[in-house]
Structures are given as C-alpha cells and as structure tokens.
C-alpha cells in the first residue's frame, strides 16, 4: 500500500489536476456536441471518472482515506444511474427506432 501511495506521489499534484480538468472538459464537450445518446452517456462517464481520479490523487497526497471512500460511492451511484439510463434509452429506442438525440424534438417552445 505504501508503495502505491509513493508511486502516485511520484507525479506532481498539479499534473493530476490539469490532466483531470482536461479529461473533464473532453467529457463536457462530448455531451454538448455529440448527437448519439450512447456516446453522450459515455462522455458523462468520462466526466465522473475524471472526478474519481482527482479524488484518489488528492486522497493519496493528503494521506486521508475519506477521498477514496467517496470514490466508491461515486462508482456505485454511477452504476445505478447508468442502469436506469440504459433502460430509458431502450424505452426510447422502442418508440423511435433511433438513438439519435435529434429524433426527440416533440417538446419545444
């Protein structure tokens, strides 16, 4: 365990922050510009996983386990959310025969 923490600390903390921010930004861009619902969901997963990585990095640097425990919560709830999300996509697919976000434009002001 000590070994792993040492390895994590081998990379400067700022690099983790920058790397995670870039990954998060890629996720956000993906949600905003992609049209396929499955890919939007993958982008959201990317956002959540960048948060996980950031939490683990902070946790290792501070020697405080609560950040890693938080990661478990995030993973568990993200899994629950994806389960519901995929069910919703299947429901939409049955009605529209498409996973394109443009196929849903019934509600519009």
């Amino acid at each position, binding site marked *: 365990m000590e070994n792993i923490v040492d390895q994590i600390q081998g990379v400067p903390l700022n690099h983790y*922050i920058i790397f995670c921010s870039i990954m998060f930004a890629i996720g956000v861009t993906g949600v905003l510009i992609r049209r396929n619902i499955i890919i939007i969901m993958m982008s*959201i997963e990317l956002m959540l996983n*960048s948060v996980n990585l950031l939490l683990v990095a902070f946790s290792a640097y501070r020697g405080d386990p609560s*950040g890693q425990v938080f990661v478990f919560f995030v993973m568990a709830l993200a899994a629950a959310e994806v389960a*519901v*999300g995929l069910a*919703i996509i299947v429901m939409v697919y049955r009605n529209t025969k498409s996973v394109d976000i443009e196929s849903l434009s019934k509600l519009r*002001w």
Partner: protein
Amino acid sequence: MGAIITLGILGILILYVGLYKAKNALLPVTLLGLVVTLGFLVSDWQKEALPLYNGMVIFDHLALTFSILCVLVTGLILLLSKEYFNRISSNVAEYYSLIIFSLLGAILVNAYHNFAMLFIGIEIMSVALYILVGIRKNDLASNEASLKYFLMGAFSTGFLLFGIALMYGASGTFDLAALQTYVATGTDISPIFYAGILLVLCGLCFKVGVAPFHFWTPDVYDGAPILITAYMSTVVKIASFIGFLRLFSEVLVPLDSFWTPVLLTVIIITLFVGNISALMQSSFKRMMAYSSVSHAGYMLFAIVAIGATSASSILTYATAYALASIVAFTALILVKRKTGSDLFESFNGLAKRNPWLAAVVTVAMLSLAGIPLTAGFIGKFMMFNNVMGNYHVVLLVLAAINAAIGVYYYLRVVVSMYFKTENENAGSDLPIPTNYKIVLTLAALLTIIIGVYPDCLIGLL
C-alpha cells in the same frame, strides 16, 4: 434519524404489497408510513441537534422543518394519485415506492452534514425521478422528458462532483463543520477552492433549475405526467434549495464577496428569462414550468442576502409556492381529463360550469402572482425585505418589474375562467372525485390562512 429508516423500509414494504397483489392496501400503507415518518420528525424537534453517524447527517431545525414540509406535500400529492396511476398502468406499486425513495433522497439532502450525503441524497432523489418521469412508456413526450432529465441530471452531477473534488483537494475534508473552520480561519484559501465553489454552484443551479441552466426544466415539466410534475416542482425543488442554503449559510458565508456577484447575475437572468418566456406560452403546463423557473429566481434572493431570516423566508415562500402549484396541477389534471388538452383555452368558462373549482384556482393564481392576503404575498414580501436590508436596490427594482409581468400571465388563467365562454361541444360538467376536493380545499385554505396569519409559519425557524 428514524424518519430515514422508516422511509427506506416503507419503500421496500410497498414493493412487497404490490408483489402480493394487495392493490387496495397500497395507498393506506404509504400514507401510514408517511404519518410514522412525520411522527419521528416531530419528536426530534426538542432534541439537541448533533451530527449523527460520524457527521454524516444532522437533524437540526432547518432540516426538520423542511423535511416535514416535504413529507406533507408528498402526502397531498399521493392523495391524488390513486386513480391517476391506475389510468396509466395496472402495476402501480412501483410508482408509490419510487416516490417514497425519492422523498428519502430529498430528506437526506435536507439533512446532509457531509458532501457524501449531499451527493447520495441528490442521486437517490433524481434516479427515482428519471423513472417516474418516463412512466408513460408509449407516450413520446414522456420518453423524451425522461431522457432529457436523465442526461441533464447526470451532466449536472458531474459538475457538482468535480466541484466537491476540488473543494476536498483544497481543504482535505468533506465535512461541513470542518469546511466551515477551513473557510473561517484560513487566510490563504487555495484558488482551487474558488473553482470548486463555482462548479458546485453550477451543479446546484442545474438541480434547482435557474437560468442559464434552466433549459431542461420546461421540456421535462411539460413531458412528465402532471402528478409527477407537481412532485418535481415542489418537493424536489424545495430539497435542492435547502441543499443550496445549507452549504452557503453554514460554510461559504465568509467568502460572500466572491460568489454574490455570480449569484446576482444568475438571479437577474433567471427572472427575465423565466417571466418573459412564461408570457409567451399557450400551454398552461408549460407556463407553470417557466413560472417555476422564475420562482426559483425569487427563492435565490434568500441566498444572495443570506442572514438570520433566510431560512424562514425560504420556508414561507416554498410553502406558498408548493400549495399553489398543487392546486394548479390538480385543476389541470381535472380539466385535461375533460378537454384533453393543457392549453389555456381548456380553462374557458370553468367558472360557470364549476364555480368552486374556479374560485380555488383563482386563489392559487393570486398566491403565485403575490397578491396580498395570500401566502405568496408574504413569501415575496419577506424575500424583497431581505434584499432591501442588504441594499441590492437594482435587484429590487428588476424584481418588482418581473413581479408585475408575472401578474399578467397568472391572471390570464383567471380571465379565461371567468370571462370567456367555452365552445359549444363542451358537454356535461366535470366530475370532481372526493379526494381531489379534499386536497384542493386544504391547499386553498392553507394558502389564505398563511396569508392572513403568517406568524404561524415564520415563528418556526
């Protein structure tokens, strides 16, 4: 604490009741469970508020009052649910149980004392709602609303989590009390903490649905079944606001010079976008969706002018708004059942056909518009008073203009009820089931009572 456990067990119990086909027992069991929950919440009132479970949750007066409000509003909505759900599907146990789980999440958000609980509460609350919004499986509008709500909810959770991660990185803790000492004592607050505040603010703004993060609100509120819309625009909105209020009033007050300008911009955009869009709607349901955006803007007043009276003014405003929304959505269910549309025109001539229903809806609309002698006026008055105390005069003037715009579109409903005639083929009068009558009367009476004697509510906090 008993409240959370009761609701957790209740949700599972209802699933079993549904499994054994005891359909008639569903509503009584659910309501009984809510009464027990209410009992636990009330009995906690006198106890000293200490963080429980290693500082995970705290049931102080703020959490208790708003949890009680959420439970009561859920109870009112459930009273309407019986034949409403039966029209959608024959297996209704899941709907009750999902509403209860969502309420459980709302209570966790009310009572969180650790960011982990804020996150878990918001997720429990929303994941149950993603399903509830889509319960009309063959209705495209419901599908679309469900998908949009899911994508936007998950997206905003990402922002919230990134913000929490950055705040953790700066302070090394998720606990609100520890964060409070970090903010209060630290003269050298790390810049990533400020970035964290902004991201958490974005995430929470998504959840309460204020502009510029409001674009999902009208679509989701419009597409969802009316009863679920009523639940979303009351319980979920109230709980998210308390999450907001607790974070800002307990932790971030010393940094108000940083976040006040951001929040002021958000409020001004929200008020104008919400009210002007509501003005242009032809559908009553969509008008209510935009009006909920603008009401979220008014409720943010309490956070921008944070102080001792913030909690009680949010309580008054939220109660008034919840009661009026329940009346409005209940009336819409009845009217839509008869005319089949949720446009303003479907209210035409309601006063002649059903004077009592028209009178109740009028009270609700006046309360939403903020006319004196209704609860909505007291709520608006307290919000404006807060802001005036903090000398945000520009905000006050803009808010007054918006309140005036609001009166126009709320009174449109009243005008079509009283002064327009319905089309000839309208047919017979619309039957109102007894449970609807009870809920409507109760909500309208409470609106007027709070409007006349606001002290009964203000004294609580």
